[in-house]
């Protein structure tokens, strides 16, 4: 076993760096490396156009990953998101049918349908006690079946007014990304300041503890699933706005199920639940967006892109795991010779500091 990494010690105790902070540091690192690589092919990473590209790339995955964070915090998973995204884009485009007057009703319908799907997911997980992975795999397949049966290709028409959401920006910041960040802010506030948000950590951390503390353990899980489906629906609306039509395959093509889970984990949230943060997830999404952007600018082979993404995910999780293992603090060096080993055994025991250490 190697020596534990240097850590700041407070009253003889190890303190881990806040995981959101680590994600931030990783993001800065990725940006620096990316900027250098981009500069090496004679382009400017920090140009307004490139920043806009990166931020645009963040918005769709950002929505999905925010909801996924809530679900994973509760120690569940949502694999149905790509199908909810596709379904949402179709409902929106069909109901809008090119008429701006239909926008409110279409958006409302999308939110209601997605909330119901989330409710179904939540109820299956909590009441039927089906593992979230399987439950949402099932509901996802059901939606997929519906989509494949009823849609042979794109459908509906999104009016110009709604397309603006996906196309306009304030300076280099796209409106869609701003909306995504507002949702992230709301999500972070929800987790920190509401009882239900607090109880999500509790249920995901240890359901038994939550139950013995008088928490109705089903509620936070159901709400997390509902919110996750709703954020997936927002992603679907955004994609409809960008494409101008609804598409039965847009969600699956984006690979949003696994990519969102990867972003959440990359953001420092435990896949087993109980620990994590929305801002970590946004950091994870940003890392993906920057890596993707750099590879596009450098015109990397698309297959290699996936290889790089895969390496980033595995490397990040490996780093987290190695850090979160509770290693005992070494008391002695690991070298062959121990300089302070007293040949004379009557030497006094080495100071009170060690005793504190021993008891920690």
């Amino acid at each position, binding site marked *: 076993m190697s020596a534990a990494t240097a850590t700041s010690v407070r009253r003889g105790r190890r303190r881990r760096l806040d995981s959101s902070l680590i994600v931030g540091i990783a993001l800065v690192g990725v940006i620096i490396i990316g900027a250098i690589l981009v500069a090496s092919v004679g382009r400017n990473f920090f140009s307004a156009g490139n920043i806009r590209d990166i931020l645009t790339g963040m918005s769709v995955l950002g929505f999905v990953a925010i909801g996924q964070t809530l679900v994973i915090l509760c120690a569940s998973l949502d694999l149905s998101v790509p199908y909810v995204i596709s379904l949402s884009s179709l409902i929106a485009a069909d109901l809008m049918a090119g008429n701006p007057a239909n926008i409110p009703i279409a958006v409302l319908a999308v939110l209601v349908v997605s909330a119901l799907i989330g409710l179904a997911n939540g109820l299956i997980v909590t009441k039927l006690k089906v593992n979230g992975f399987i439950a949402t795999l099932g509901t996802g397949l059901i939606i997929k079946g519906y989509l494949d049966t009823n849609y042979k290709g794109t459908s509906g028409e999104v009016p110009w007014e709604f397309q603006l959401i996906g196309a306009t920006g304030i300076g280099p910041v796209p409106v869609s990304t701003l909306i995504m960040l507002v949702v992230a802010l709301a999500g972070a506030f929800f987790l920190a300041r509401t009882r239900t*948000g607090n109880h999500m950590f509790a249920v995901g951390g240890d359901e038994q*503890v939550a139950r013995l*503390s*008088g928490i109705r353990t089903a509620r936070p899980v159901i709400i997390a699933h509902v919110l996750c489906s709703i954020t997936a629906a927002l992603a679907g609306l955004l994609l409809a706005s960008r494409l101008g039509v609804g598409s039965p395959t847009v969600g699956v093509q984006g690979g949003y199920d696994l990519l969102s889970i990867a972003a959440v984990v990359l953001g420092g949230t435990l896949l087993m639940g109980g620990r994590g943060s929305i801002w970590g997830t946004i950091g994870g999404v940003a890392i993906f967006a920057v890596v993707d952007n750099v590879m596009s600018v450098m015109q990397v082979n698309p297959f290699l892109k996936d290889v790089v993404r895969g390496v980033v995910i595995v490397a990040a999780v490996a780093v987290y795991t190695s850090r979160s293992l509770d290693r005992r603090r070494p008391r002695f060096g690991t070298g062959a010779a121990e300089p302070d080993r007293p040949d004379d055994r009557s030497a006094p025991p*080495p100071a009170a500091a060690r005793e504190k250490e021993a008891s920690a």
Partner: protein
Amino acid sequence: MTAEQPQARADRSAVLDGEPVLVATGLEKSFFGVTVLRGVGLTLHPGEVHGLVGENGAGKSTFMKILAGVYERDAGSITLGGSEVAFTHPVQAAHAGLATVFQEFNLLPERTVAQNVFLGREPKRHGLVDRKAMLAETRALLADLGIDTIEADAPVRTLTVAEQQIVEIVKALSVDARVIQMDEPTAALADHEVELLYTIVRRLSERGVAIVYVSHRLKEIFDLCDTITVLKDGALVSSGPAAELDTDELVRRMVGRPISAYFPAAEADTVVGEPRLELRGVGNAYVDGVDLDLRAGEIVGIAGLQGSGRTELVEALFGIAPFTRGELRLDGRPVHMTSARQAVKAGIALITEDRKAQGLALNQSIGDNALLVIRSVFARRTGQARRELPGVLSSLEVSSRGIDQEVQYLSGGNQQKVVLAKWLATKPKVVLLDEPTRGIDVGAKVAVYTLMRRLAKEGVAILMISSELPEVIGMSDRIVVMHDGRASAELPARSDEATILSAATGTLRVGGAKVVGTADAPGPDPVSDASNEEAGR
């Protein structure tokens, strides 16, 4: 402490004269037709510390859980503050003023102290969680107990076990409990941490909180409790003032025999032979400069405080965190253990401290667990081991529904026997036991002791770590005491507890059973050291 204790008790007898806060009478409970509690009750006065003792399986936990509302009683009555109550959930009981600190921690390691204390009842302001109020109230509760080392906004995982125990108590207090039940609150605490718990219990008692204190450590019961209720086999043996009992009498009531009968004597014609293991100045990141011989047929006990490097020493011997210096010889040949697999092949067995996490695959069967090592390391001997398994299990008196039963449904004692069966199947030459009797009942303890004697007679060398000094003293041919990662003393059999403790706390330095240099070590304070000693069973 000894001087003031009778005085304290005399003063406190007035406590028992007042109006009781809790009266439980005639509680009965059976599970699936098996009666586990018959006609048990107790009376609790404000400020009273009431010890509840009995062997594992005597019904203590069931009794507590009925009071706490985890189980519903089949018969009997409970009045709290004068009115009849029937709780159906621990939270309901807590809100009525009867809080329980369960043995398993009910804390979320990733959440802060304040978030844990107010879990499920977070204070709200304008519909949002009032974090400031939560922190302030938690700080006030901690300050009330005189605790200034715990920060209300620190994640619970950064706390020591003792501090986590305090958070549990604070959680109970935050509901204004009039009665607090504590189930083995010191089970996971090192000896020197116990004192802090004492202070808290006494402080609560002064404030009029009644405490039901369950512990296996009889010294704690006598140190803290005004009254003692003894349970045996689900029935009430006695309930009365602690001053009327002494340790021997209490043990007799609990088990019907004296302490000394626990430890079987070495079997006749046990021969201590050649050294099986020889350690010469071995060390790694956790232990250093350990010299030790372990001979065939010998039982060597390792004493020391938690964190003194005892577990790390056996883990190094077993190749988990190998020694990086010094010399290790097995049967006279130098070896370098770098993996558990190598250790197993060399004939070493390690019975780990944490049975559930490290010793067993809980949702696998007895058979699968017992054959685990054989299958993975000595695959060719699997058939033979399988045939011998029923005999091994019955010689260990494992009581189960058969070898296909999942080990998670066995009692702690039977689980430990399965662990032992697993290692016996490898026919080890050296057996390392880390807290082999932790959390198991007396009957199973005796079975473990008897097995150790039998193995010794067969020429196996045994190294046993234990925090229970009577066990170390009762079983060891020699006692090695660890302190601060080093072997601070090697003491002969039947050394007394005070000597072991002073070595364990670093105030005595002995080599080869003779004191070689206490001059440099400042004199110990025997009184305070002795207060940590454990006169358990």
